[in-house]
């Protein structure tokens, strides 16, 4: 079963088997050794559970993993953690620096703390869950990824977002969804301001179902899909029209 269809309970269960996991201590081994070991995994890997200790803000932890393994990172990471993830279930038990999960293809990434700017940028698939807050440019240019943020997101989030879903339980900063295409944005709290061509839209039954499904996948309890407002594209800036010049 590909990791991106694993439920929260299944993910937790796989993480509970950590006694059997392969432990990689970054205070003893280099980051390159870790990433090379992960890249050597072939389909049907025997080592399905990995644990990374002492990341201490390291950059590029567990980038480019393309097998359905689970990776628990114990501590906070720097830039580009779990970038290009394709199928792995990666959990950071700490906070993440800029660009976490950049260009994720499939799988899941859970950040137990906060995420810095451009979390999930250009992501094409999979699920990124941020249990704390995300800062500016969350989901910038997203292309199919689903992002669930338990807290708030910063300014310019979902800028030029093309497809996928961004679900925010808290508030959104300035210029949400500026120049957005067909991504769907769902915000439960206050939106500081909407960007160019981004408008509030009606929550239809299919959106309630979609949001509920994402909340369930992200392990969110006690929050109802009906508490969210939907935002998306007014579709006025797709093609240049001189009458809309002021909006660019």
């Amino acid at each position, binding site marked *: 079963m590909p990791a991106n269809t694993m439920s929260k309970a299944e993910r937790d269960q796989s993480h509970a088997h950590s006694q059997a996991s392969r432990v990689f201590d970054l205070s003893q081994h280099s980051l390159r050794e870790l990433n090379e070991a992960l890249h050597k995994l072939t389909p049907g890997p025997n080592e399905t559970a990995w644990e990374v200790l002492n990341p*201490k803000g390291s950059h590029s932890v567990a980038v480019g993993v393309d097998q359905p393994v689970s990776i628990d990172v114990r501590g906070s990471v720097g830039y580009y953690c779990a970038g290009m993830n394709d199928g792995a279930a990666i959990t950071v038990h700490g906070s993440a620096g800029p660009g976490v999960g950049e260009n994720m293809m499939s799988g899941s990434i859970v950040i137990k703390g906060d995420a810095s*700017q451009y979390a999930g940028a250009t992501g094409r698939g999979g699920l990124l869950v941020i249990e704390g807050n995300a800062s500016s440019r969350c989901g910038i240019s997203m292309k199919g990824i689903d992002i669930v943020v338990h807290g708030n997101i910063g300014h310019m989030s979902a800028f030029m977002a093309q497809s996928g879903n961004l679900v925010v339980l808290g508030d959104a900063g300035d210029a949400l969804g500026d120049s957005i295409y067909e991504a769907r944005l769902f915000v439960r709290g206050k939106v500081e301001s909407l960007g160019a061509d981004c408008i509030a839209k009606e929550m239809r039954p299919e959106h309630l179902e979609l949001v509920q499904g994402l909340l369930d996948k992200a392990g969110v309890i006690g929050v109802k899909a009906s508490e969210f407002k939907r935002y998306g594209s007014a579709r006025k800036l797709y093609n240049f029209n001189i009458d809309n010049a002021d909006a660019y």
Partner: protein
Amino acid sequence: MCGIVGLFLKDKALEPKLGAMLSEMLVSLSDRGPDSAGIAIYGAATGNEAKITVQSPKPDSDFRGLDAELAKAIGAPVSVAVKSTHAVIRTTPDKVDTAREALQTLRPNIRIMGAGEAVEIYKEVGLPEAVVDRFDVRSMTGTHGIGHTRMATESAVTTMGAHPFSTGADQCLVHNGSLSNHNNMRRELIRDGMKFETENDTEVAAAYLSNRMAHGKNLGEALEGTLSDLDGFFTFVVGTKNGFGVVRDPIACKPAVMAETDQYVAFGSEYRALTKLPGIDNARVWEPEPATVYFWEH
């Protein structure tokens, strides 16, 4: 890129370790900027002594006999403590301006890094590790300090182009980013009496803050002014005699992480810089908001 750090101690027990802690923070960010590095450390001001940190390309000849010659020229006691290419000149607070003028005549090659009652500034071309070793920064004590490792974009890689920049007594600033209206702002500040040593954009930001504080603003108000008056990308970390401040431009693309415990407030361009601080695992760690001024004072 560039990497910046700052550390403001609340717990006096950590003061003997300030230099070591700040050095560790700066060295951890070496790959954000290999061109040059600098550090400003604030010791406790005694009120009856001022310090001028100077640098010379020929320290052997320039610093030899300087104490006696300068004492004679200004008519006050002077001590000179040499550290590699830098020296800290100590004299009475009322003689600082006279001493600066006298230095121009006595030692025309000497460049002034900064002056005040509390601050000492050390900066040179090279990696943070080399700069920290050269000036034995790890052994320094103090109440707060800031540091910078530079990847140059706006002006040449020289000692004078390294950060921190100091443009007022006990004031200094480090910067990650680049300013686009620095030439205009420099002209405005020159008209208002500010003096500049370089063509560097960051020096303009430092002088802007010094100028506003000279006009009666406090550190927080001066930092607030950068948001409307300076154009470009910036994360600034600023030190004053008893304070420490942080501000990011509204776009906030230059990274910043802060941590606070009962013992200290710390700033780093990245979390990596904070990982060796005591109690960091239980610290409050957050990313400073865009266009928001943070400052602490003793």
